[in-house]
Structures are given as C-alpha cells and as structure tokens.
C-alpha cells in the first residue's frame, strides 16, 4: 500500500491548477482494469477527480515525457515523481533536455510497484479487482469465488524489491516523508551471471535475447534514450535495422543500446518493465553500472544535476582495458 493517499495528490494538483501556478498535470490515468494506468496530461479539475489514480500500479516514470511536454506547453507542468523517477529527472536536466523552469515537481514516496505478470502468475488469469491492504493486495478474479490475499512483497517488481533509493534527489515540494538511499542487492544477479562459465553466460543471454522482437519499447521508454534520431532508425548509420533477423542483430541492438546509456542510466528499470518478452534488460545496464563503480569509483547517474558521466570523463591512472579481467578468472 502506498503511504500517500490519492486524495492528497489530487488536492495538491487541483489547488496548483486553480491557482494558475501550473497549467497542466502529468499523472496516471485510470484504465479499464485496476492495473492498466496510462500516463496522461490533465488540465481539468473534474477529470482529475474522476480519473487520476495513485496506487500500487503506477510504475510509469514521467521524466522522459517532460522532454516533449515542456516543448508543447507554454505554462508550467506539474509532475509527480517517485524517488527513482527523480534520478532520471536530474539526468535529463544534466543533459539539458528540458527547461527546469517549466516544471513543478512534487516528490511522492513510493512503497514499490506491483508487477502484474507476477500477480497473474500467482493468482491466475482473469483479474477483476484489487484492494490494497496493510500487508498486500486483496485480489478477485473471474475464476475465484473468494478474494485472494496476496503478499505485496511476492508481487513487487524486481526493480522495487532491489530499490536503490527512496530518497528524492529533486523536487519543489515533497509530500510525505523523505526516504533514504537503500542498501540494495541489485548487483547480486549481475555477480551471479559473472560467476558463470563463459558457456553458461552465453547460453543465458542467448536464451534471453533470442526472445527480442525489436519492438523498441525499451528504447522508447528509456529516459536516457532521448536522441532525436536513433542510430537504429537511421538508414545511413550502417547499423539500422528494425527486425531481430538473427542472434547477431539481437545482441548488436542490446549491447549498443546499453552502451549508449552507460554512465547515464540511473537504473530506473523501465526497460525491463515494458519488455513484452520479459527480457531482464536491466541486467545489461547494471553490469555497466557495476563495472563503472568498480573501475572508476562509485557513480550514481542523476544523483545531482551537472555531474560528469564516467564515459565523458577520464583519469590519468584509469585501469587498462587489459586489466579488466584481473581477479575474475572464471573461464
């Protein structure tokens, strides 16, 4: 259950809208079911009262929308950001992707978001309703006579289980309590893969990446992917392709995409959330983050505005490429 109630958000949004401080509100719109919320721009008080939602299914990170929405709007935009979203927000500001003056940020605490896939795996298909309780969710389905009690921890998204920070690194106003940078086990899975033999690693990634359908959802949702024209869409780039023709193309796309955001990826986990094939794409990004931390010192993208990303920086004493594998002799 989220600590802040939807009504608190709605009241703030409406009062800011009515006072003219903001001209629109970027928030989550109720869908057909309890879980399919859509990012939306609200400008109308009644619309907000009726359709604005804040619950355990509001996973979408709004930061990237600010790039296009601030361009399209003359007035200020109110945006609600969860702690992990604020990192993407800062990173986009660092890269001068939108005008900070046009945004009013309300930070909201987050208790983690539910992965609907996990929920379905647990209670079965045919989800009808879900009610948040102290410990979890009370879910009804088309095929169960009684509501099923679901432990929230068992259905949280991977990125929320391994939440790196509940601290807001950017806001104009904070609702509720400020959180802390968390001790997270987010690199454990990376370490587990590193510990495999090369053959196992190859088989693991071959299996995962071969499911890719090249829908580009990971790229299009990624707050770090804000190029006007992606190399993979550009016919003269030499690497343009829109089909997972074979295992090479699948690897090419995902390696290069992860590399392009290396050092700028805040580990918000949107790529894995949106992947229709459930490819654990965050494990590629986290590998880069882990390596960067290990090779060049701890660095968290988006922690502060204006920091220099590790790949556009260097030290005279940097590790040599040949020393990368030192101490890692799994062959």
């Amino acid at each position, binding site marked *: 259950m989220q600590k802040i109630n939807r009504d608190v958000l709605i009241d703030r949004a409406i009062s800011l809208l009515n006072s003219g401080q903001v001209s629109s509100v970027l928030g989550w719109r109720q869908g057909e079911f309890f879980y399919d919320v859509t990012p939306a721009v609200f400008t109308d008080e009644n619309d907000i009262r009726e359709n604005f939602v804040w619950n355990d299914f509001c996973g979408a990170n709004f930061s990237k929308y600010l790039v296009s929405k601030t361009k399209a709007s003359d007035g200020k935009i109110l945006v609600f950001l969860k702690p992990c979203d604020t990192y993407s927000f800062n990173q986009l500001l660092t890269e001068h992707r939108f005008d900070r003056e046009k945004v009013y940020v309300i930070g909201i605490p987050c208790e983690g978001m539910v992965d609907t896939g996990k929920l379905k795996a647990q209670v079965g298909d045919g989800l009808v309703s879900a009610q948040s309780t102290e410990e979890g969710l009370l879910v009804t389905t088309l095929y169960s006579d009684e509501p099923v009690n679901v432990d929230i921890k068992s259905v949280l998204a991977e990125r929320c289980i391994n939440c790196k920070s509940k601290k807001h690194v950017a806001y104009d106003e904070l609702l509720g309590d400020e959180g802390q940078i968390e001790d997270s086990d987010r690199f454990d899975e*990376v370490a587990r*893969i*590193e510990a495999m033999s*090369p*053959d*196992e*690693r*190859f*088989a*693991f*990634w*071959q299996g995962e990446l071969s499911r890719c359908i090249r829908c580009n959802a990971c790229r299009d949702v990624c707050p770090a992917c804000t190029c006007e024209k992606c*190399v993979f869409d550009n016919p003269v780039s*030499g*690497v343009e392709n829109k089909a997972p*023709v*074979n295992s*090479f*193309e699948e*690897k*090419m796309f995902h*390696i*290069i995409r*992860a*590399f392009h955001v*290396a050092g700028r990826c805040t580990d918000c986990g949107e790529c894995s959330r949106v992947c229709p094939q459930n490819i654990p794409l965050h494990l*590629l990004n986290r*590998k*880069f983050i882990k*390596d*960067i931390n290990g*090779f*060049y010192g701890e660095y968290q993208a988006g922690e502060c505005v204006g920091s220099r990303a*590790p*790949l*556009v*920086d*260097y*030290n*005279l004493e*940097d*590790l*040599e*490429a*040949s020393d*990368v*594998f030192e101490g890692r002799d799994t062959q």
Partner: protein
Amino acid sequence: MQVNKYRPLIVAFCCNWCSYAGADLAGNNRLNYPADVKIIRVPCSCRVNPSFVLRAFQRGADGVIICGCHPGDCHYTSGNYYTRRRMALLFSMLDYLGIERERTRLEWVSAAEGAKFAATMNDFAEQVAALGENKRLEDLRCKR
C-alpha cells in the same frame, strides 16, 4: 604441408598518428606479422565506436584489436583516455555475454614501436587462432 589450416581474420583499428605509422615501420624493418590482420586507419583510437567492433565481428572478424597512442601521447590530448574507458567497459560487457575475452584487445603502440606492433599482432593472431572461428558474434548471413 598442412593445407586449409584455419587462419583467423583479425581487424586492427589503428590510430593514424601512432600505430598506423608503427605498422609502416614494422613493414620497413621487414618485421613479419600475419597477413590475416586487416588494418583500418582511424584518426584517433577514440574514433572507434563500440558498434565498429561489433560490426567487424558481424562481417567475419575472429578478433578485433584497437591500437592507439600511449596514454599522455594522444594527438588530440585525451582521445585515448576515453578509448581506454570505453573499451574496458565494452570488453567486460562482451565477456559478460559469454563472448571469449581473448577476441578483443586494446594496445598502445607508438609510431616508433614497429617491433612492438609486429609482436603484438603475432601474439594476438596466435591467441585468436587458438580460439578458432568466432561463433558467438557471427552473422550467418555474412557467411553464405
């Protein structure tokens, strides 16, 4: 005489200001290095985008080596420092995906180091030859 001995195809990206001249020097000094090494001249080692490395593998390379100026000697002051970080991360990522780490290398070779150039290429070619054909980053279409 052994026929059809497997010969690896090696792509070497060489910086125009150092290792490319180093290769020249190796040639002038009649130093041998394998003919399987195909040199691509780049204005600076930092011109080598990670996608170039992958493209080389796609097009049939069995090993890719990037040669640049020694740290501190970059013609553009700092290009090779960026290369160092990029390639360290890229090589580590390729390894993470289960691609043999011996297929990639970054070396600093100056224009005066013809001997080092030849030795590096000999060593790298041998290392790659020991691995055999690149199967993990191949594009079967290019082998038709």
